[in-house]
């Protein structure tokens, strides 16, 4: 059964496009990445799935239930982490966690205590005194403490330090092994690459690519930059070449051994090979689409 399924889902804010004919399928138990630039329609999609927005047309179901008809039951089985975690001022972390559990008519105190410890979150602190990252941790505990079947996480790692990010993804991985479906919307490509099995790229309110992460990544180039002198003439797969006096930078989508041979034959004092920025990945898909 699909955990999330949208069929030509469309949402317009007046005459402004949110999403337009979006088709998306997330299988139960998988970890799914949702990638797109600002304004592409990621948040609109999530908000429609959670019943915060009514679709203009099309349909959507979550855990086999209609998002309009079964909103309450869907929310009972879904844990959601918004990109901006804002809470009621003046409250302590433990009050927020208790309030969230109370809204679910559940006692989540044990689970909350474990999660707080793992994420190094002090429940006695006031929300107003927390940094962005610590507020994010509160949001994570709220989303996870009731042990939902589906986790919808919007930009989950913003503000988290690398150690906590690792702990967070360890928790997700444990949940995933227990059959929980994880839906992550993110700008950070390597997060999706490391943690998701499938992903979709959204642009202008439509899914422009969807498939296994390794397949999607295959099509993406590497960002190469070096300091020194290398003869790149005739090397296939170079894009966006930017030569400076003491080196060059470019996107490379060709054979890696051919590039390494050229680099070895040249004189290189520094070399950097990295994943392209997400923007560059998007550009790749945009170019392909156009």
């Amino acid at each position, binding site marked *: 059964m699909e955990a999330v399924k949208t069929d030509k889902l469309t949402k317009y*804010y007046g005459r402004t496009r949110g999403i337009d004919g979006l088709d998306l399928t997330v299988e139960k138990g998988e970890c799914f990445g949702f990638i797109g630039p600002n304004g592409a329609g990621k*948040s609109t999609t999530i*908000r429609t799935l*959670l*019943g*915060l*927005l*009514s679709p203009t047309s099309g349909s959507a179901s979550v855990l086999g239930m209609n998002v309009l008809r079964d*909103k*309450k*039951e869907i*929310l*009972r089985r*879904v844990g*959601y982490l*918004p990109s*901006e*975690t*804002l*809470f*009621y*001022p*003046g409250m302590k972390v433990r009050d927020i966690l208790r*309030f*969230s559990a*109370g*809204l*679910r*008519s559940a006692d989540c105190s044990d689970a909350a205590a474990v999660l707080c410890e793992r994420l190094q979150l002090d429940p006695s602190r006031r929300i107003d005194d927390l940094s962005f990252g610590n507020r994010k941790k509160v949001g994570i505990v*709220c989303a996870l403490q009731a042990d939902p079947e589906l986790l919808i996480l919007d930009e989950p790692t913003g503000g988290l330090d690398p150690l906590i990010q690792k702990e967070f993804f360890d928790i997700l991985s444990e949940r995933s092994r227990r059959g929980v479906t994880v839906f992550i919307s993110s700008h950070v490509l390597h997060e999706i690459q490391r943690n998701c099995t499938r992903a979709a790229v959204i642009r202008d309110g439509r899914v422009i690519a969807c498939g296994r992460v390794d397949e999607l990544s295959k099509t993406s180039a590497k960002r190469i930059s070096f300091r020194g002198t290398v003869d790149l003439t005739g090397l296939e797969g170079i894009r966006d070449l930017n030569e400076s006096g003491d080196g060059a930078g470019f996107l490379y989508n060709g054979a890696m051994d051919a590039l390494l041979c050229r680099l070895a034959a040249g004189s290189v004092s520094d070399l950097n090979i990295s994943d392209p920025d997400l923007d560059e990945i998007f550009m790749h898909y945009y170019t392909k689409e156009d």
Partner: protein
Amino acid sequence: MTILRHELRRGKTALLIWTGVIALLLAICIFLFPEMKKEMESISEMFASMGSFTAAFGMDRLSFGTLTGYYAIECGNVLGLGGAFFASLIAAAMLSKEEKGRTAEFLLTHPVSRTRIVTEKLAALIIQILAMNLMIWLVSAGSMLAVGEEIPWKEVGLMHLSYLLLQIELCGICFGISAFISRGSLGIGLGIAALMYFMNLISNIAEAAEPLKYITPFAYCSGADIVTNGTLDWSLVAIGCGFTAAGIAAAYIKYLKKDIAA
């Protein structure tokens, strides 16, 4: 009841401050009454020479020398305006504050129906208004006993009842508006309370503006009418109940369908 408890907890400080201020002002007014009673003649003359404002405040039909008359004019204004501002402010903010404070996303992504959210928030408003009126009534009665006056139970009770109904009406109207807005609740709450108050003054002064009394809830709170007739104008109260019901219905209809944007 989670949302109800949450709202009562969050509204506690504002409730105590508003109740404290209104009760204190009422108590001060009542404690000044024995002094006023001694200077009744000169005060009555002064108020009688205020032209149309005498009628606006109902001072042409009430005697400042009696506790009932004094309470209806002085204390009625304090309780009327103070209570109206409080009820309008908290009601106008009740639904909109979730969007203004950007907590709507948190609240509405929990398994709670919007009907329950609106109902529990409305219940929180009514409880706060009832609590404030009860505390003020107790302080008021206590103050009258403290200055050694016999309490005119019926008149004072009817006046307090009228102000309670006024607050509930303004609460219903502002609650309805709250579902349509995401910010600006402070101005709207204060504006509506002040508008209704001045509408009543105008309808008392100018004959041509008399129909305004069917709109403003202050019309059925006229101390002069209540003391003179020994009852409230129930036809005006019924119209007020209509406005209250319309406001509450609008809140449910709008909020249940409302898109919650980022």
